[in-house]
């Protein structure tokens, strides 16, 4: 990635307001350039389908056990909490409705996003960061091969596709977790629970959730790649990039979750 130095006199003046602000805007500029180059490289996915597939497998295999594990407990806790909040106010036949809505719209995509950010986002930043500091990215460039085509595009598409797929698994498992708690500890029959879920289920909720998941997947891949590309300074630098990738993508997932909610449901 060629990135442009920010103007020097400008830097000195703005320096008074803190290097952090400059780095923030310079960072936005560089991410924008990366995204531009990514869009330009998207058509090469056919030529690079084996790389895309490899990344999809990696993301799926790497994340599925953890996503399933987290989802069981997410569903379970949302059933417990909903039952507690319903207490004497809302009939328990709506328990399935509450758990279902919460899981499909919010908890499924967001928690899957956060779990994948921790596992896959970190792995992307570490791998690309290592490639950067060992000059492998420079080597690609000198061989007239585009690192965005080779490295970013496959990871981006894998994130865009696999996050919704993982979210579907998460939704199903979380609802089963909620169902189990309702039957065993709250005393709601599985028929009542599922009926409550089904009668208020709306396809658009599911789509909203999966749409979010796609956005989160994009964030994880782009931030992971970006942090990898800007890595400097050996193993220590790789460690820092990895941490920053996880923190930044987690924050962006929560912020974009709010913005999308506002757009779709606000």
């Amino acid at each position, binding site marked *: 990635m060629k990135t442009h130095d920010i103007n020097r006199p400008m830097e000195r003046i703005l320096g008074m307001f803190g290097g952090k602000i400059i780095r923030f805007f310079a960072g936005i500029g560089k991410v924008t350039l990366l995204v531009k180059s990514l869009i330009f490289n998207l058509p090469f996915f056919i030529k690079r389908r084996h790389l895309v597939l490899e990344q999809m497998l990696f993301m799926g295999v790497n994340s599925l056990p953890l996503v399933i594990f987290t989802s069981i407990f997410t569903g379970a806790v949302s059933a417990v909490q909903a039952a507690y909040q319903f207490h004497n106010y809302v009939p328990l036949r709506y328990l399935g409705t509450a758990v279902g809505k919460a899981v499909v719209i919010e908890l499924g995509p967001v928690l899957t996003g956060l779990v994948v950010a921790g596992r896959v986002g970190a792995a992307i930043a570490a791998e690309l960061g290592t490639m950067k500091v060992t*000059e492998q990215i*420079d080597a690609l460039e000198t061989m*007239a091969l585009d690192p965005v085509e080779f490295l970013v595009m496959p990871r981006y598409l894998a994130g865009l596709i696999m996050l919704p797929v993982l979210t579907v698994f998460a939704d199903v498992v979380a609802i089963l977790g909620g169902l189990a708690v309702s039957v065993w500890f709250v005393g709601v029959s599985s028929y009542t629970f599922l009926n409550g879920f089904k009668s208020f289920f709306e396809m658009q909720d599911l789509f909203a959730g999966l749409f979010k998941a796609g956005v989160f997947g994009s964030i994880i891949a782009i931030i992971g790649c970006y942090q990898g590309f800007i890595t400097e300074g050996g193993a220590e630098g790789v460690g820092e990039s990895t941490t920053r990738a996880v923190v930044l993508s987690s924050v962006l997932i929560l912020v974009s979750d709010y913005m999308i909610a506002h757009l779709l449901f606000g």
Partner: protein
Amino acid sequence: MIEVVDLHKAFGSNNVLKGANLKIEKGETLTIIGRSGVGKSVLLKHIVRLLEPDSGYIQIDGENILDFDRKQLMAYRRRFGMLFQGAALFDSMTVDENVGLSLREHTNTPEEEVKEIVSEKLRVVGMKGIENLKPAELSGGMKKRVGLARAISMNPEFILYDEPTTGLDPIMADAINDLIIRLREELNVTSIAVTHDMTSAYKISDRIAMIYEGEIIFAGTPDEVKNTDNPVVQQFIRGEAEGPIKAV
């Protein structure tokens, strides 16, 4: 002909290049010497525009490479083979995939032929039969030689060698010297090599250039280098701690 003109490059407050000028003639082997950290690798990276200067420029046959658009830059880079100081092999690929990458990506060479070329290039660097190993399974010197095989895989017009003999045993180092000489004689390759190894520099070079304090302070044939009265060059080629260059 490649011309480096008044190149300046700073990293933050670290002024590495401060007006470097250098000409590389077609078909010659030019060696760059200078102390560790003086900017030799940085200079090499500017030549393929992996780094862009703060001021100054680089010309190839009269064209400024900083004016190239992405497509022209890619075409320009394809004329080069580059051996990185740390070899920079792709960890995720086997030796065969590393060495054959450019052939597979940039040419329509049939797969069998690619395999043949790869094993031939590995043979000339003394690494035959390791096609299926991963870089992690190789020693430092082996990586370097695979990197060299990758650099010459496309029979480039220009080869940039960043310390080709560092980390090799003396016998292998001399074999690599011979290879560099042969590439120039047989394929008329233009080479720029960075090295600390003066034996190698004298043997392979048509000319030797020395970087000191951000500039090229001397460029001449091996004999001119040996006989110069420039005290800085003399101290460096003799490897003496006492002299105008402060060791510590």
